[in-house]
């Protein structure tokens, strides 16, 4: 357990000292801050535009950062052979992978939390002016929570692919899977209307087997202040944690069998 924690904290330290992460963070900061600028070009419904824009930016940047960081880490360790001196210690490969996963999750969650805080501050400041109906609403927080769950699950999917293939193959595959996961409900509905059995089964298979990122997306609900029940939040939390654990089990099984030439 100490090995996992050591590796996780070291991974977070790596991200803090990595220039690429710093540049990405500055870029994300500017993008989220531009939410305030967006209302300068708006005639009415300022709060909806601001919510749409702010959550949209975070919803675009957080998976992009997750895929970029999550798919690069393990292949880079193997390519540069930095992994040799770590797995030669009394640490199992599974512990190494889980430690690296946790380090990456801490990094992306940290980035999402900072972006979210900036977004919420802008909402609060704007909410204090007379032109806005509300400041921070519960549905804003629910949408941000959904984004956090999404990066936790997406990082696990990145590690599953990265444990078996190169960075390029992994990032391409995970990006495709991310979009499919966001269309899972639509694909299911579309497939159910088909007269072909094969398509119906394929639609169901995609819906049940692939990660359903659509379930974690509350951005549209936040825009229209559509409430989400506590039981639904509990359900998506359990879904995310269970799916993440399952993906990590598969990833460690693959990683345990891999040769580091």
């Amino acid at each position: 357990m100490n090995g996992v924690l050591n590796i996780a904290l070291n991974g977070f330290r790596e991200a803090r000292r990595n220039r690429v992460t710093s540049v990405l963070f500055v870029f994300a900061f500017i993008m989220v801050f531009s939410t305030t600028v967006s209302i300068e070009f708006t005639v009415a419904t300022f709060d909806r535009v601001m919510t749409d824009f702010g959550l949209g930016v975070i919803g675009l940047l957080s998976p992009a950062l997750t895929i970029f960081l999550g798919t690069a880490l393990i292949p880079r360790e193997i390519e540069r052979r930095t992994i040799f001196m770590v797995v030669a210690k009394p640490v199992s490969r599974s512990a190494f992978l889980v430690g690296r996963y946790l380090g990456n999750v801490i990094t992306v969650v940290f980035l999402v939390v900072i972006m979210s805080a900036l977004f919420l501050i802008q909402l609060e400041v704007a909410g204090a002016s007379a032109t806005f109906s509300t400041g921070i609403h519960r549905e804003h927080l629910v949408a941000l929570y959904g984004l956090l769950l999404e990066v936790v699950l997406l990082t696990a999917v990145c590690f599953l692919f990265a444990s078996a293939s190169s960075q390029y193959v992994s990032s391409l595959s995970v990006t495709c899977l991310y979009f499919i996961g966001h269309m899972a409900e639509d694909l299911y509905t579309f497939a159910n209307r088909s007269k072909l059995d094969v398509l119906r089964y394929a639609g169901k298979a995609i819906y049940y087997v692939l990660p359903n990122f659509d379930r974690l997306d509350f951005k549209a609900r936040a825009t229209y202040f559509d409430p989400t029940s506590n039981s639904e939040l509990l359900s998506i939390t359990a879904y995310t944690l269970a799916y993440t654990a399952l993906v990590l089990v598969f990833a460690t099984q693959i990683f345990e069998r891999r040769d580091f030439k």
Partner: protein
Amino acid sequence: MTAAVSIENLTKIYTLDLLKGRRRVVALENLTLSIGEGHVMGVLGPNGAGKSTTIKLLLNLIRPTTGSARVFGLDPSNAEARRHVGFLPENPAPYEYLTGEEFVRFAGGLSGLRGAELTARVKAVLEQVQMDRFTGVQIRRYSKGMTQRIALAQALVSNPRLLILDEPTSGLDVLGRQLIRDIIVAEKKKGTSVLLCSHIIPDVEALAEDVAILIGGKLVRSGPVSEMLSSEGSRVELVFEGVDAERLASLEPEVIQVGRRLTLRTGADDARALIEAAQQAQGRLISMQPIRHSLEDTFLDAVRSSQNKVGSTIE
């Protein structure tokens, strides 16, 4: 007593180009050897001989195709097998964003050291590899020699009972090489077993008690270094100055002439006649010594008898 390393019929085959038809690379074939506790084993071999493959198999970096390896009686896939092992890879690549001290501390933490014990060990090994002045500098700013020393420090930090060193002195200056040789000698005195893979044969000759020569993935010779250093029959090497090689040609020695200096190799029985002939020709004897069969000669003989086979076997 359990051997530090025990290898039996170990074979590693890689499969290449699956789309173009199966091609097999035999990186290691039926290797059997063992290293007793407190022994230093040198492994020699040209590029692609299987030295690094053997190390990777012992550290669970790759999996064997057939055969078995044991480290302190445990399978390398068991993390506990590596509890008492320190490993210095060839061209080590520590995390460059860490300082030297942070990296050694990280390595010590992974080995199970904590608190005051970890701090004390980190300080001790940094002094041992003479890197205590550069502890706060990020590894990305280190020279190759400094990186090698920090990598050795991380291998030593847990007080290992087995040190696995892959080309520990490659790319180092004379001082760096001497330091690493001194550390190996000190570890040997403490009773640490050492597996030393190197291209630098004099290092192996000076440090190892036993040696294994691998060529093309196969073990072609192994045994105590002392047995491989036996004198070469009763031949001697004589060095003269101021004598022409043609004046001594009748005695048919091996001759190397550089300027006025003449080096001759001949049987001990012919040495007296050569000296007399040289003195008659107004030559001066500079030195005379028995020819010693070095480990390098043994290695070259082994390579020649394997028909200069270099690299792994591709089938």
